[in-house]
């Protein structure tokens, strides 16, 4: 089956100008919360640099909104670097962001493990260090759909990135040092695992049509967030079975003990109605309950998306007292907000 002729319509003016125009929209929609550096395609916390606070910088290709720009603000990121759609930002952006948010306590880069992101952030960190900014980096690679190995690109960073940004951001807000803040992000990465399933493809502004073809009865199992196909294709199935399919590899890898408390994050990839995400969350809750794992905190919604892809990912994070308290701490961003 070919869907090559299929067109995905978009609200855009010029495919090459989508990101700057959207950033201008973010600036107009959230004055007081963030400012936008249009030249460097950065969303920056309005009051950055916060003196004495560790600065948090993340970024990546666009098309995953609200990640990362929607998470800039008190208790989370200090700056987000927006690349072209599905394309890592360039080192100059990370350098400019790091300089803009350095309050003298150093800057943490939270980097999703994709070759492009890793290389560009690495070069960006070097540029920033050349200009006197102390930089630490944490790599997120929580996607258990990808087999890890020394000889491959390794696991992808997906849902845990949102959690790391929140939790490390809370640690920074509470006065943590650069290494303490980095440790929280690493801890999140160590204790979180994710898995995604797509029911449809998505189209970038320049691809015009769906990135991959999917039969009317097929789903992609083990997808990432860049419209890439998954590890395998399966027949579409009831939500209950799909959740089993997703939880199994997560739990196999996470091996939670009986009585473990987790943060369960059911994330929409963009084109799945919230109604279905809550239905999935119900399944996750029931199935975890059956296995003696209890959900102590939760997040349900579209937080790390793949444009308009229909699909969802599940992320489980094993909580402890520190992480729970950091989760509950105030956050004030466009997409995640409480306590303020």
């Amino acid at each position, binding site marked *: 089956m070919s869907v090559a002729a299929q067109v995905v319509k978009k609200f855009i003016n010029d495919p*090459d100008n989508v990101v700057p125009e959207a950033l201008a929209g973010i600036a107009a929609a959230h004055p007081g919360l963030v400012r936008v550096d249009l030249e460097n395609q950065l969303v920056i916390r309005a009051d950055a640099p916060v003196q004495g606070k560790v600065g948090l910088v993340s970024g990546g*290709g666009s098309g995953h909104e609200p990640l990362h720009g929607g998470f800039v603000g008190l208790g989370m990121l200090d700056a987000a670097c927006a*690349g*072209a*759609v*599905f*394309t*890592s*930002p*360039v*080192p*100059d952006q990370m350098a400019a962001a790091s300089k803009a948010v350095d309050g003298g306590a150093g800057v943490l880069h939270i980097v999703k493990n*994709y*070759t*492009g992101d890793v*290389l*560009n952030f*690495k*070069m960006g960190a070097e540029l920033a260090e050349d200009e006197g900014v102390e930089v630490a980096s944490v790599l997120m690679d929580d996607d258990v*759909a*990808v*087999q890890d190995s020394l*000889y*491959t*690109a390794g696991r*992808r960073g997906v849902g845990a990135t949102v959690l790391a940004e929140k939790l490390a951001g809370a640690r920074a807000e509470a006065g943590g040092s650069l290494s303490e803040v980095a440790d929280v992000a690493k801890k999140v990465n160590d204790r979180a695992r994710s898995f995604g399933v797509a029911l449809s493809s998505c189209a*970038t502004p*320049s*691809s015009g049509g769906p*990135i*991959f073809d999917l039969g009317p009865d097929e789903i992609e199992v083990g997808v*990432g967030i*860049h*419209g*890439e*196909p998954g*590890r*395998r294709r399966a027949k579409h199935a009831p939500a209950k079975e799909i959740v089993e399919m997703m939880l199994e590899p997560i739990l196999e890898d996470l091996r939670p003990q009986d009585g473990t408390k987790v943060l369960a994050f059911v994330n929409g990839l963009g084109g799945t109605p919230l109604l279905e995400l809550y239905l999935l969350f119900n399944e996750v809750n029931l199935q975890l309950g059956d296995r003696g794992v209890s959900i102590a905190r939760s997040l349900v919604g579209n937080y790390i998306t793949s444009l308009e892809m229909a699909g969802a990912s599940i992320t489980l994070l094993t909580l402890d007292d520190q992480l729970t308290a950091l989760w509950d701490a105030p956050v004030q961003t466009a997409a995640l907000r409480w306590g303020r």
Partner: protein
Amino acid sequence: MGPLNVNAETVSRWMSLCASAIAEQRDYLTQLDAAIGDADHGSNMTRGFAAVEEKLASLDGGMPPGKVLITAGSTLVSTVGGASGPLWGTALRRAGRSLGDAETIEPASLADAMEAAVAGVVELGAAQPGDKTMVDALQPAADALRAALNGGGNATQALAAARTAAEDGMRATVPMLARKGRASYLGERSIGHQDPGATSAAIIVAALEQAVGAEP
């Protein structure tokens, strides 16, 4: 045919030829990337080489070819993003550095530069030949260039050999299982698709042959 005069102008011409050839193949490269990646390789490379062309056009003349290449590489790093930006940026910068301040490039230095470029890519990206990346086009090209020169060929012949080797290498990526880059996430499903980065690499090597051959 007299000795080739490969100089800063040749390098600028090469970059312009890259810009036009890649812009022409933009949709094709994006389609290849859609099959095993994220459908942005065409726009990434087009954006980058357009920026390089613009940057070089804005420079006063008088830069040695090595510096021109370093400038081109830095421009790629600053404008492409993704995996290909740092990798190609490093490739051109390493090639440029290996050329030093020489005003004209001897065939042997050209081979040195191409080897330095490939070494830079491998150092940064850690891909081995056979991993289904641009390295599978670039490494054979550098090897063929050196071998042709060692075998007594002139620059024109050597560059033709490099181009053929790059194209063969590009086609050889089809049956490979990807172990680096985004395509590696597909595992077995990456087999049967040509690597987009190897394809643009072959285009860039072909543009080099053309740029040198077009020497007035």
